[in-house]
């Protein structure tokens, strides 16, 4: 058989989660990290604002507060044991990054600097707390670089620009994966005892998104096709501040530093919706507030966007209005120069893409599809669990945005994803290596590459009467308009019908590139198939959940309904459709209560 490799552990994905998993797994087992992008191109590098840990470097803070804020942020759908575990581990995890050389910004005392972020509060006063550890507005970039560098230092084996197409199951256990080498078009079989998926999210299914082209849900989709369920797929986060039309993210850190949202009438509107934390409420709350303003005709020029104002004089004025002070009690002000030092990339994006200078002008923003809360179900050790009773699938692990632990529940707090990558990436790596040490290799199936070959053949042999780009554009629009921030039964029924039609049309797409070398047309078309599968699950789970919770807002069911819906959704692809079952939420210390900010 050509191109067969054997590793104890294979990690799929080389973003923050995959690199952390690879680093830890390779200490105890022969490990390969496989990625369709060069590791440093992974989307973790786009993360801006920060990573949370309750150090209290600048004011009082504690992991219990972080835990409670995350539970509340999740709208009580997060599993509290896992959230507590993550928040307790956070300070150690962030220190580990510092010890690996990550260049965090510093306090005058030389400690890691921290800034406020949405939903992170002092639990006594209810006011925003400085919990997000940052390196300017390129925290993710520094995490990605640092982890990649540590992997090089520790001689982790990489297969760069290999796209994983299939997961191999033999005797109901993990047997490996199949990948295609982008440069040659050749298939490779990776025979493995354990596989860790860390393939990121699927935000590209939406029209306006902050997500990279690579965010096509590959890992989730290919496991779905192999009978693994996906959890809580109806929950997708829309970040309040994307650059108008382009969706490029403007970090919440801008509001953390004092920026405020302004409607078309020039009014600051967040105090109406979140009287205590105002512009720093949870993302679902702020995105809905923006939409409400727009719907009620208070968008800018009666259009579908609002302003984000971070001009130094505005920051000073609103800080005074809110009674915000520096840690030493002096009035909070920020000069243009300081803002430039704190969020240089944001200022650059606005200048390049909008021709707007945030130091003197307001930024036009609209909510943008941002983060996949749902995903491959795991426990807090990164083990994939495949049913209502959390039965572990032997040798299969997942971590990062593709996974659902669930620590984010119905709405993720900003800075908790980078933390999730580091904490659960590490534990998935440790667990997989531990498993590989005691497990044997399953035999490979007789023709492991057969299914992958068949999938590609089909794409090459379509009738060609449909264009993949048209299908992509329509899918993104359907999902954004009908399964976006606000949802209702009629719209979602329509979306499901349209998705069915798009799936049917997808059968008639034909890849025109007949070559082997960097056949990017073939790979991208395969990714479209993944996005269509994932979109269907998202839409069906969203239609099924008849309540509003966190990022899932139903116009026809506007309230949270704990008596019927305080439970996780599990969705399987079955007989050409989606089968939905449920599992309970883990509640330890914090019984659900009404969520006000």
């Amino acid at each position, binding site marked *: 058989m050509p191109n067969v490799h054997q590793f104890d552990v294979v990690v799929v994905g080389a973003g923050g989660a995959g690199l952390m998993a690879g680093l830890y797994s390779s200490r105890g087992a022969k490990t390969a990290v496989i990625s369709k992008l060069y590791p440093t191109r992974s989307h973790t590098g786009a993360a801006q604002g920060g990573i949370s840990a309750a150090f209290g470097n600048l004011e009082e803070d504690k992991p219990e507060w972080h835990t409670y804020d995350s539970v509340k942020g999740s709208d009580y759908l997060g599993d509290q044991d896992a959230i507590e575990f993550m928040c307790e581990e956070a300070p150690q995890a962030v220190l580990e990054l510092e010890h690996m050389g990550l260049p965090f910004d510093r306090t005058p005392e030389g400690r890691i600097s921290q800034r406020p972020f949405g939903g992170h509060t002092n639990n006594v006063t209810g006011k925003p707390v400085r919990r997000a550890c940052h390196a300017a507005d390129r925290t993710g970039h520094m995490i990605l670089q640092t982890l990649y560098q540590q992997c090089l230092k520790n001689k982790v084996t990489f297969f760069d620009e290999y796209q994983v197409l299939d997961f191999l199951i033999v005797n109901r256990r993990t047997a490996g994966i199949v990948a295609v080498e982008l440069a040659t078009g050749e298939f490779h079989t990776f025979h493995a005892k354990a596989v860790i998926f860390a393939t990121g999210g699927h935000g590209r299914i939406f029209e306006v998104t902050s997500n990279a082209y690579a965010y096509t849900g590959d890992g989730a989709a290919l496991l779905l096709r192999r009978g693994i369920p996906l959890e809580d797929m109806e929950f997708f986060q829309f970040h309040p501040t994307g650059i108008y039309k382009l969706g490029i993210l403007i970090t919440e850190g801008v509001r953390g530093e004092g920026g405020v949202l302004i409607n078309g009438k020039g009014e600051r509107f967040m105090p109406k919706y979140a009287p205590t934390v105002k512009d720093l409420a949870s993302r679902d709350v702020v995105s809905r507030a923006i939409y409400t303003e727009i719907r009620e005709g208070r968008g800018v020029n009666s259009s579908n966007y609002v302003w984000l104002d971070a001009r130094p004089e505005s920051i000073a004025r609103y800080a005074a209005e809110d009674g915000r002070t520096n840690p030493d009690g002096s009035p909070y002000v920020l000069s243009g120069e300081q803002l430039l030092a704190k969020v240089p990339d944001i200022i650059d994006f606005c200048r390049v893409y909008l021709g707007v200078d945030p130091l003197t002008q307001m930024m036009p923003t609209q909510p943008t599809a941002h983060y996949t809360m749902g995903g491959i179900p795991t426990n807090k050790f990164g083990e994939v669990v495949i049913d209502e009773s959390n039965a572990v699938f032997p040798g299969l692990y997942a971590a990062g945005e593709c996974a659902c632990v669930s620590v984010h529940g119905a709405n993720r707090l900003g800075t908790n994803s980078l933390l999730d990558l580091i904490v659960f990436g590490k534990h998935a790596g440790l667990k997989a290596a531990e498993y590989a040490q005691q497990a044997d290799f399953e035999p490979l199936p007789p023709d492991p590459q057969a299914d992958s070959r068949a999938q590609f053949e089909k794409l090459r042999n379509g009738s060609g009467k449909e264009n993949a*780009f048209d299908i992509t554009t329509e899918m993104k629009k359907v999902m954004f308009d009908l399964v976006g921030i606000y949802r209702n039964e009629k719209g979602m029924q329509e979306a499901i019908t349209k998705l069915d039609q798009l799936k049917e049309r997808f059968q008639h797409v034909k890849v*025109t590139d007949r070559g082997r070398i960097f056949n990017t047309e073939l790979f991208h078309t395969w990714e479209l198939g993944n996005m269509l599968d994932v979109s269907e699950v998202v839409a069906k789970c969203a239609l099924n959940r008849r309540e509003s919770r966190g990022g899932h807002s139903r116009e026809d069911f506007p309230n949270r309904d704990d008596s019927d819906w305080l439970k996780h959704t599990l969705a399987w692809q079955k007989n050409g459709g989606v089968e939905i079952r449920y599992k309970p939420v883990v509640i330890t210390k914090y019984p659900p209560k009404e969520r006000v900010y």
Partner: protein
Amino acid sequence: MQVTLKIFRYNPEVDKKIHYETYNFEAQETDRILDLLEHVKGYFDGTLSFRRSCAHGVCGSDAMRINGRNMLACKVLVRDVGGQITIEPLLGLKIQKDLIVDMEPFFDNYKKVLPWFINDSPLPADERERLQSPQQRARFDDTTKCILCAACTTSCPTFWANDDYLGPAAIVTAHRFIYDSRDEAAAERLHILSETSGVARCHTAYNCTLACPREIEITRAIGELKMSMITGKLD
């Protein structure tokens, strides 16, 4: 507005030699060059190949020559370059297909400068962070911004002429560690940079600084390294 896109094409499986294809279509002034490439791929020729991911200038996938200058296709708008646009792959790296070049030699150079944090001393007694003042942190801030897109290295005449020259990107990485007050391997890295393939080869053509989409002051960073080699000082 109407744009004319002239794109370098080469597919080793079918083309005997390189050639250019021209595409005319309607575009917006605010479209990214990357959007235009996607459009061509979607509606004119699916075989056109290029790398891309983030689409906003932070992942380093799509450095290429646009009207003769190295840029990220996702960070240049039509209004920045006008309606007549020529797109070619980076120079100095082997062309694999169309706008895709072989990045391995580039990453090999990166790996030569010990691109990882080195500090084998014990942690502070409280086992918390290694302290660093804001001023110490600011010392190497500029060179932490590098996204390894290769725009700088492939704009450098010395690199075109000598495969073994480390190139600006690798030197920038070395700079990021050498001036980090917490790192302990500055001497070793300076030694690597002082070898024949190192900074001495830089003739301050300045191309790299102009090419950097992250606006890193590369020539200045290289100058600082040359100075440190002479004085043995790191401030």
